[in-house]
């Protein structure tokens, strides 16, 4: 295949599909094993310094924040990150735990830019590669397919391409110019779901973002869940299982695990807390204060929820979502 152009950023994670196959053969358990553990154990066992980690979905939606706060507390270093995470990325950036990032969009939409990401990017402290949302999701798809790259029709002609690690090639069948995206195999994927059994068979309600692909692109997968259900319930509606057990390594019970983000049909995002966070994040000083108060000095997720307060949490619950 003739390569016509190349993005100029060195790949942050190489698409080694042969090594991935070997890993899956040797390390992924086949049996139905109880995988329930708390954040502390899950992070200790499956997240290591230097790992490439990914969080699923974007912004404040279905955000796996209980696990991320634990990664921050354990101070895992030199992390490389992917995904369209937002608070997840900001927390880790704020503590200088990040070395490199594949970026698509880091901003708070209606609420504006991310001051923490801005400082990190503008100071040049973190190595960055640019991608589009489609591109990132397709990179997971390629890894899920077990192939090293996937050809697409996005990113062509743009600086987004130039500052990525994609390549342009001529299609051997049609002669069209295509953008080749390298598969993105994660060391650890982290996904927050609505329901899951103890083996890690997971159900997501509403849109599924890129959970399907990312779960399959991850060597290790930590699932945090609002509810642990019986396997009998999973077996009754197997078509709802987006993430089957064999992809999952840890099941973490985390009610309100997405707070201050939202969980559709369960609770809304905590606008007040978000605004406070963004206000504090304007300065390095304020950021440090926030991180100290809501992440570092908090022992575990339970304590975090107590800190936010049951009244506040109940107020965020959907009264009865109209469907």
């Amino acid at each position, binding site marked *: 295949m003739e390569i016509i152009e190349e993005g100029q950023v060195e790949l942050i994670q190489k698409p080694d599909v042969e090594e991935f196959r070997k890993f899956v053969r040797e390390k992924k358990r086949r049996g139905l094993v109880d995988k329930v553990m708390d954040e502390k154990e899950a992070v200790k066992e499956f997240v290591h310094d230097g790992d490439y980690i990914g969080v699923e979905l974007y912004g404040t939606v279905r955000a796996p924040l209980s696990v991320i706060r634990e990664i921050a507390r354990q101070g895992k270093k030199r992390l490389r990150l992917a995904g369209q995470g937002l608070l997840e990325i900001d927390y880790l950036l704020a503590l200088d735990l990040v070395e490199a990032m594949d970026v698509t969009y880091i901003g708070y939409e209606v609420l504006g830019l991310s001051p923490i990401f801005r400082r990190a990017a503008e100071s040049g402290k973190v190595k960055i590669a640019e991608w589009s949302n489609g591109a990132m999701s397709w990179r997971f798809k390629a890894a899920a397919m077990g192939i090293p790259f996937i050809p697409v029709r996005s990113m062509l002609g743009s600086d987004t391409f130039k500052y990525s690690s994609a390549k342009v090639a001529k299609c051997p069948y049609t002669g069209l110019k*295509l953008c080749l995206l390298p598969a993105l195999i994660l060391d650890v994927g982290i996904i927050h779901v609505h329901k899951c059994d103890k083996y890690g068979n997971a159900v997501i309600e509403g849109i599924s973002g890129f959970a*399907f692909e990312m779960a399959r692109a991850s060597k290790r997968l930590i699932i945090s869940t609002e509810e642990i259900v019986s396997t009998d319930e999973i077996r009754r509606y197997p078509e709802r299982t987006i993430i089957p057990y064999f992809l999952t390594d840890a099941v973490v019970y985390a009610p309100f695990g997405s707070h201050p983000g939202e969980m559709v049909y369960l609770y809304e995002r905590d606008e007040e807390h978000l605004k406070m966070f963004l206000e504090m994040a304007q300065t390095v000083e304020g950021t440090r204060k926030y991180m100290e108060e809501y992440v570092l000095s908090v022992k575990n997720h339970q304590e975090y929820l107590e800190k936010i307060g049951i009244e506040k949490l109940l107020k965020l619950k959907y009264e009865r979502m109209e469907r």
Partner: protein
Amino acid sequence: MRYSKTELMICVAARLMEDYSTCFIGTGIPMLAASLAQKLYAPNLIPIFEFGGIGAILKKLPRAVGEGRTFYRALAATGICDIMETAQRGFIDYGFLGGAQIDPYGNLNTTVIGTYEKPKVRLPGSGGGNDVGSLCWRTIIIMKHEKKRFVEKVDFITTPGYLTGKGKREEAGLPEGTGPYRVVTDLAVCDFDEETKRMRVISLHPGVSLKDVIGNTGFELLVKEPLEITQEPTEEELRVLREEVDPQRYYI
């Protein structure tokens, strides 16, 4: 009748939304425009949100492209690969985008102001912008009309417009027959000249002179004679917008 510039932009964008069409809806003004269009002009409009919502009823305004309101009473709730692949197959008619900078060829920047290596301001990045601008048939851009935003050359092409002129999109490999269609600003509506693919003003908003528009544009803007005058928001549009679309005034 009094109305704000933002309200006018929303009304103009809503009128551009065609009934029985599929539209990529991004955060902000496009959401309000889609909601207004659904209520007044295009009851069969299918809003598509990049993280998976297809055909939502926009009863309440979403605040983000993945949140619950993007698939409230929707026809399907899928995922981002499916949505982007649907666009890549040619099914999505319109995409609505904004940006920090735009150039005469409709190239958009949402990545950095200044140089990439030492940015003055780091912006959020592409998100779905690059995919929307690359893959849907017609892109409608909604932006505030300012000299510092309408620049001769964007600092970074996050989302391709016509690149450097006619045929350049196709040369780069982008699907044939796609590209920027209209630019809706707080001063005017522009399209792109068929021959040069450069931005051209086609309609002035009420009370705005051509001089105002040119004075707020940092490049040579083509003019389509005779220039039209944009229709003001109707009372009905304003009422629906204020009372039904955004009663909490998130945006207006």
